[in-house]
């Protein structure tokens, strides 16, 4: 089944994949964070998603108008071309290669920005780094329809 990117159904498909891969995520350990994803489209149009993880699972993924009112630990923000490039790379390699991992893209904020208010909650991006990367890597075998 095809899923559009960006869309709630895309993140719900990752949530379902994560549930199917319980052993893999249980081995990685507790994964307790709520973070935002912002996809900036043409004309600075923003689509925001709030992803909530608890214990070993994704508990929810929903689209919201404004992330500020939701108080996420941090927000990953990039333009749509960057997100699409990352996902295409994940799909062609079965996971992000050395240039397309979340840490590499966010480290100097060149490809993707990390927005946060609180350095302690920002550190959750690093405390759960492998879980977050493997969550996005689950897109490898999704059929994705990219917005033009």
């Amino acid at each position, binding site marked *: 089944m095809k899923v559009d990117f960006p869309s709630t159904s895309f993140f719900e498909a990752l949530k379902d994949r994560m549930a199917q891969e319980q052993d893999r995520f249980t081995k990685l350990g*507790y994964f307790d964070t709520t973070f935002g994803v912002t996809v900036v489209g043409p004309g600075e149009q923003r689509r925001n998603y709030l992803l909530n993880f608890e214990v070993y699972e994704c508990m929810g993924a929903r689209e919201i108008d404004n992330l500020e009112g939701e108080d996420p630990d941090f927000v990953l923000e990039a333009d749509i071309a960057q997100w699409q490039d990352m996902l295409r790379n994940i799909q062609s390699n079965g996971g992000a290669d050395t240039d397309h991992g979340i840490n590499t893209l966010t480290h100097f904020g060149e490809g993707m920005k990390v927005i946060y208010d609180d350095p*302690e909650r920002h550190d959750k991006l690093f405390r759960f780094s492998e879980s977050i990367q493997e969550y996005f890597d689950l897109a490898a075998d999704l059929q994705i329809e990219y917005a033009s």
Partner: protein
Amino acid sequence: MSYLATSHFLDDNEFVDKYLYSMRTGELDLSWMDAATKEVHCTSANERRGLTFRDLDVDGYGFSDLPEVVRENRCYAPRGAEIPDGVPDMQAGVNRSSDVWAYNVEGYVEEAMSRQWDATTDIAWTELQEAELPEEIGKAYAQLLTFLTEVEMIATDVPAKWMGQVNADFIEVKNFIALQAMDEARHAEVFRKRALSTGYGLMRASVQNEYNLKFLRDAETFSEASVTLHLQAEGNVLTLFRFSEYISPTDADKKMFRLVMQDEARHVGYGMQHLKWLIKHNPECRETLHAHLEEAENFLFGSIFANEVFEPFVILSGKGLKKENIDKGLVITGMFQMRQTEEYFERLDKCGLTDRRERSRLHEVYELTKQGLAAQGAI
């Protein structure tokens, strides 16, 4: 053998007779069954998570009612157990909550236990053995790994040194630092294994870095050790791991740095939560902390500009030794060091040490680096 029993039980006829009598008659003392403790039945608040330390935070056993000074328990009696007369004083050196406690320490322990990994099997060593690196990159990487191994060895020793000093009533803290020692030992293991799999082996230890490590090890109080190890040193190393992941040559190297980064971020989290707790419950410690950080920053500055530390970063981030590589590497390394310093002061701000920034000479260096990079058009 410096400590001897106060009684020779094998020569104590009364003691031996009592044992033989019990064995012969089956008559038991059973007075421990009336221990003056609370009967409780703790259950998991969240079954998927399991039974956590937080679930045990109940009347008579919990951590929420810990006093600032623990006077009663001088031995290894678990918190909540009856302590009979006559137990020895084990002379724990750290008996004040404000000296060790941290907000959410019980959560960090569970997270640490749950997120353990294995340096032997969780890294794709076969893939790494096949990866060939150009000589200057390989040597620079082996030098970085040598430095990281040195750092992780001291990071193992420091929590291990304090573990036996912390009063047994602070079991959550003792477990956290025990797990930290385990984490750091695994980091020393994984970096040693990676260095010896590059084809270049280990390179050179650094004099300035070793001075910094000695300073970290020899802190006189747990809080001083924590603010410099957990918050300053590990905060810097956390940024360094992210940078190392960023410049890593292979997917397997990247995974290695993501795994070590997770552990390091947890230690930084504990350090921040401890500093916040300390400043709230013992505000007069601020000046002592400033004095300790002043010296810590001096040692750190010496360490990060040691040739064995600074130069591999430049080569790895510029991806070579040609002039254009070095120029690029200097800019990226400068940006990385700015990020390290920014995040250090950001964390101190959050913990309530907001005046560190204006008092710190390290912050002056940060401003100079920023001006230099701006003049080059890098930022």
